[in-house]
């Protein structure tokens, strides 16, 4: 299962400014749109998931996995990466505040499992998360992810 996250991310922004969770999810959606992964409608679908089901997608301390279900707004499976310059609150009981939002769009329930496994193995380490959030450009994020993929 040699998946390098650096190759799977269709869009990376670092040190982004978001006033609240909605803006942070919108940035992740914008990244999916810029990467040709989804249309703007998917961004609204991701926001609706939070409104309907609460902030359960804050899957680990400081990390949100923004997503909605497979829909016509998804063009292909892909991920976007948004590192925030200042954290935002999602309202999660254990994992707030959030400094990294990963946008996920999938065309089905299975095709992205290897990527999710790699994501989990890199982001389980708080020190790696800290370094990734501190990154100041796309190249640094890709370099760190490649380095972590080699050592995990």
């Amino acid at each position: 299962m040699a998946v390098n996250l650096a190759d799977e991310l269709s869009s990376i922004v670092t040190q982004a400014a978001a006033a609240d969770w909605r803006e942070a999810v919108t940035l992740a959606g914008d990244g999916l749109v810029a990467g040709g992964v989804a249309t703007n409608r998917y961004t609204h679908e991701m926001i609706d998931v939070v409104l309907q089901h609460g902030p359960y997608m804050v899957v680990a301390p400081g990390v949100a996995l923004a997503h909605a279900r497979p829909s016509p707004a998804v063009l292909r499976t892909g991920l976007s990466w948004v590192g925030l310059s200042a954290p935002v609150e999602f309202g999660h009981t254990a994992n707030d505040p959030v400094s990294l939002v990963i946008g996920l769009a999938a065309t089905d329930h299975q095709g992205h499992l290897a990527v999710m496994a790699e994501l989990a193995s890199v982001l389980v380490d708080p020190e790696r998360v800290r370094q990734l959030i501190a990154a100041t450009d796309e190249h640094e994020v890709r370099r760190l992810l490649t380095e972590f993929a080699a050592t995990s």
Partner: protein
Amino acid sequence: MKIVAVCGMGIGTSVLLKMNAEKALRSLGIDADVEAADIGVARGAARTAQVVLTSAELATEIGDVPAKVIVIDNFFDVAEITQKIQSAVE
């Protein structure tokens, strides 16, 4: 044993939970099937399961089921999942 990992949409967090729960079960030496489910089908799936893994937010949506509902805070953390499954089945 049947375990259901529940998230809102069935593509993101439940997939993570399923993978990490399978790792946890292997290390505990427990033979169990782990199924990923979205919240829409979770109540039905939970009826035939012994354990449900989910987040605090979704646990309240699942409501009363015969299965033991375990709330996971960090979905990336196999150690947390292992420890919580272990104390649930003992």
